[in-house]
Every structure is written in structure tokens, then in C-alpha cells.
């Protein structure tokens, strides 16, 4: 295992320590593993809390700041945070207008946020929850755990964060969040496995000439293994299942090509070029683009594509100023 770490069990705490040192705009409770804004949002506004396992940086801690999250809870690597953290963060950021929990659809995340929401409600904090589940690699079914929440989570935190900053109430914020969640679809592919520090070796072996198609963000194997293919074929494998699952030819789309942690920008741009070509051919109008490593899977080489249906309102929230370590524009 080749990583810049000390003790594998201290990785999360030590990374948060570095994050705190690097970003005066954040207040990091290293003990409880919660990232807050140094300057909390004004009173009377809905607060957004997210979190999840570590290893996905900049998500979620890097998305704390004006126009996005109010707090992020960091779990162990690939392990959702515990209810205590989520409860503490929720109570801390509540401005009296209620708190939205943004949860990615994984059994552990859902259960831990659920327990925290129950405890927060018992303490008199109004909590609503949105669960993202945009990964088309997994078939949706009421008998299973359902789809994984992946790339749309980043877009949702940006869009809903802007709306919350504007002072919208919890009901409309929750409805907006659900609308974003419903409108997003993602698909991912991995060229290498990541290595969980505590495990010390790659989660799976992937021969030099193979790739995993339909992966999530926890270093897990994907839905199927395929021979390594040129970028233009991989682009097809990303776009096709998304367009098969939902219609993106009506209205406009936000396209998000995400790196999994060990894929450099030159490859991401090249891949986005291939994706953009196919989208144009398929009649998808891309109104906004995000290319970069925003939701990673430790040191996995790979990428995922997320498409989100966007109307004028969504685009307005997307364009609104954001000032976080991970996403920053406008003022």
C-alpha cells in the first residue's frame, strides 16, 4: 500500500487536521469529525447537513461553505458516520428553520442518518431528508437496497445550497432536493481498484487489460468486467445506460464528469470530449459542465458521468455564487 499516511486508523482524523490547517473558512471539529463553516449562515435559513464515509474528498467536507453545506460529518473510510456526529452537527447548525439531511443511498448511511434524525426530532429540531439514488448500474427494485447515490449528490448540494442561502423554507428546499435527486442519473467505470488504508491491499484485483463497468464510489467491483477499451468506447458505456434509463433530450442538462481519485485531468478532459460528442449526437443539450475529481473513491483510477435535467430555476441555483474549498465561483 503506497499512501501518504501514518497509522491507517488515524487517516480520517489526520486528514481533517490538515483540512483545518489549509482552510480558515472552515471550522473543523476534529474530535467529532465534523466540518462546519467558520462563519455560520444567517438566522432563519434552512441548514444543510451531509456526510458519509471518508475517502470521497472533496465530498463532503470540501463542500462546506457559503452557497453549499452548513456541516459535513466524516465517517471512517468508506463507513458512514455515526448518529452521534450527525445529531451534533444537526443541532449545531439549526437556525430554527430546520435542517435538510442529504444522504446517499447506502444501507449504512440511510440507517445512521435515520437514527440521528429521530434523535434530532426528539430534541425539537425539524429534520427533512433527501436520499440520492442515481446510479443506473444498479437496477431499482423495492426488494433490494435500490440504487446507489453517487454523482448527483454533488450537484444537489450545490443547487439546494444556493436555494437555502436565498432563504427558502424547509418544505420547498426539500421538494427542490427531491426534484434534483429524481432528475439525475449516473454511471461509472474503474481502471484500477482503490486501497482502503485499514485493509492494506487493493479491494479487488483487476488485470492490466480489464476494467470494471458499473462501479460505485466505495472501491467495490462493478456490475461486470470488460476488456479495457479506448476512451470513445468507454464513453459509450457511460452514456448509453443513462440515456436508456431516462430521457435527457427535453430541456437542458448539466453534465458532470467525475474522476475517481487517481485519474488525472488530462484523461478526464479527453473522456469528456468523447462524452460531449455522443451527447450532441443523441440530442442532449448540455447547458453546464463540471469536469474534475469531486467525489472520489480513494486512489481508484476511473470516472463517472452524471447527467441532470435542469430547468431555468435549477440553472439559476447552479450559477449562484458558491465559496467552498471544493467548488467556488461567483461572489
Amino acid at each position, binding site marked *: 500500500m503506497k499512501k501518504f499516511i501514518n497509522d491507517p*486508523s488515524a487517516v480520517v482524523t489526520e486528514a481533517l487536521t490538515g483540512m483545518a490547517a489549509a482552510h480558515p473558512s472552515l471550522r473543523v471539529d476534529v474530535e467529532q469529525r465534523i466540518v462546519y463553516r467558520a462563519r455560520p449562515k444567517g438566522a432563519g435559513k434552512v441548514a444543510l447537513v451531509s456526510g458519509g*464515509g471518508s475517502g470521497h474528498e472533496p465530498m463532503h467536507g470540501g463542500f462546506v461553505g457559503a452557497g453549499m453545506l452548513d456541516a459535513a460529518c466524516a*465517517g*471512517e*473510510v*468508506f*463507513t*458512514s*458516520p*455515526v*448518529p*452521534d456526529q450527525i445529531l451534533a452537527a444537526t443541532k449545531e447548525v439549526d437556525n430554527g428553520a430546520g435542517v435538510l439531511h442529504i444522504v446517499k443511498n*447506502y*444501507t*449504512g448511511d440511510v*440507517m*445512521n442518518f*435515520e*437514527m440521528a434524525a429521530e434523535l434530532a426530532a426528539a430534541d425539537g429540531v425539524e429534520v427533512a431528508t433527501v436520499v440520492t439514488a442515481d*446510479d443506473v*448500474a*444498479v*437496477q431499482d427494485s423495492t*426488494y*433490494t*437496497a435500490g440504487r*446507489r447515490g453517487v454523482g448527483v449528490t454533488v450537484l444537489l448540494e450545490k443547487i439546494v445550497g444556493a436555494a437555502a442561502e436565498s432563504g427558502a423554507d424547509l418544505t420547498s428546499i426539500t421538494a427542490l432536493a427531491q426534484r434534483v435527486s429524481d432528475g439525475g442519473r449516473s454511471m461509472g467505470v474503474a481502471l484500477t481498484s482503490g486501497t*482502503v488504508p*485499514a*485493509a492494506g491491499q487493493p*479491494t*479487488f484485483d483487476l488485470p492490466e487489460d480489464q476494467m470494471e463497468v458499473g462501479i*460505485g464510489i*466505495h*472501491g*467495490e*467491483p462493478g*456490475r*461486470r468486467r470488460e476488456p479495457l477499451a479506448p476512451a470513445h468506447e468507454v464513453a459509450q458505456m457511460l452514456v448509453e445506460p443513462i440515456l436508456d434509463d431516462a430521457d435527457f433530450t427535453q430541456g437542458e442538462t448539466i453534465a458532470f464528469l467525475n474522476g475517481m481519485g487517481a485519474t488525472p485531468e488530462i484523461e478526464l478532459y479527453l473522456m469528456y470530449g468523447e462524452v460531449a460528442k455522443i451527447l450532441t449526437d443523441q440530442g442532449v443539450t448540455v447547458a453546464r459542465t463540471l469536469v474534475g475529481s469531486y467525489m472520489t473513491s480513494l486512489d481508484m483510477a476511473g470516472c463517472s458521468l452524471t447527467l441532470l435535467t435542469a430547468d431555468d430555476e435549477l440553472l439559476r441555483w447552479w450559477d449562484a455564487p458558491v465559496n467552498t474549498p471544493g467548488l467556488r465561483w461567483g461572489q
Partner: protein
Amino acid sequence: MADAWDVPLLTQWLTGFRDAVDQAGEELTALDSAIGDADHGSNMQRGLAAAVSAVTDAPPADCGAFFKTVGMSLVSNVGGASGPLYGTLFLRMGTVAGTAETLAIQLFGECLQAGLDGLVQRGKAQAGDKTMVDAMLPAVRAYDEVAADGGPMVSALTAAAQAAAQGRDGTTPMEAKKGRASYLGERSVGHQDPGATSMTLLFETAAKVFA
């Protein structure tokens, strides 16, 4: 030897479970690497270390307090799926155990049943979904059968441990419907479930306490 649990014996059980999970840590993580995210070993190790600390730092007054302390430790220190699941299991056992200072074969059976109900309520997994439920459900049934015949405890727990192990082995050919392994669809077939594996250790170490 007594044929009922008390706080020292429960502590012995917990310590034994922690040791067994420490020993099996790499195996659990390897199983979770194949169909999950390679953390079940470290998750359980972290949680059980905290639980053992909690009950040794401030020994609980009764069996209910013991289970609640363990449950809260797991909920507060594990995270992931196994934290709330194992946590709820122990918390519910604690509710049934209440202020009892000993748990004889009948009452302990009721604790187990409550724990299983809590686990199922929390995780909504059914038998055959390839989860820890597939080890616990047959274990509790086997325990109940022996308990209905009057025991002794060691027989009931041994039967439970054997049934758990069988249930655990039975997860291998299953296609997962719950938890991370479900994302793999058919590719989850042929791999043993990590949670069912740790659950089996829970019953095996219980049986050893009375052996």
C-alpha cells in the same frame, strides 16, 4: 457452573467476541472486499474495542444496562451498516433484559428474539437476502428448540452456533438483495457474507462461555 448469564459472563462473552473478531479481522475484510467495501473487519474491531472499554470502565449494574451500553457503543463507534444493525440488536436485548441480574435460558431466548426483531426492523432484510439475518435467524430458532426442551444453556447455545454457521455457509450461493453486496447482482453469488460470518462468531463465542 451456573446455567444463566450474569454481567461477568456477558462481559466474558463480549470479550471473547472481540477476540474472535480481532482474530478474524482480515478474513472479514477479505470477504467484504469481494462483495462490499473492505471494511467489515475494521468496523467490527473498532466497535467491539469501544464496547469492551465501556463495560470494563464502568461495569453495568444489570444485564439490561450491559446490553444497552454495548448497543450504544456499537451505534456510536461503528457507523456503516453493521453499527446500527448490531447496535439495535443489543439495544433491543437490553430492553427485554431490563434490570435482571441473571438471564436464564428462557429469558435469554426472549432477548435474542427481540434482538433479531430489532435487526430485521432496522435493516428490512428477509431470510435469503444474504445478510447477517441468514445466520441469526436459524441460530435463534435452534436456540429456542433446545430451550423449549429445558436446556441446558450450553446445548442451546451450541445448537445456535451450529445453526448460525450453517446459515453463514448458506449465504455463499445466494444473490444479495440487501446491503452493498446487492449492487453486485449476480456477481455476489459464490461469496460468503461478511456480516453472517461475524454473526456466527457472536454465537460461537456465546457457546464457549458455557462450555
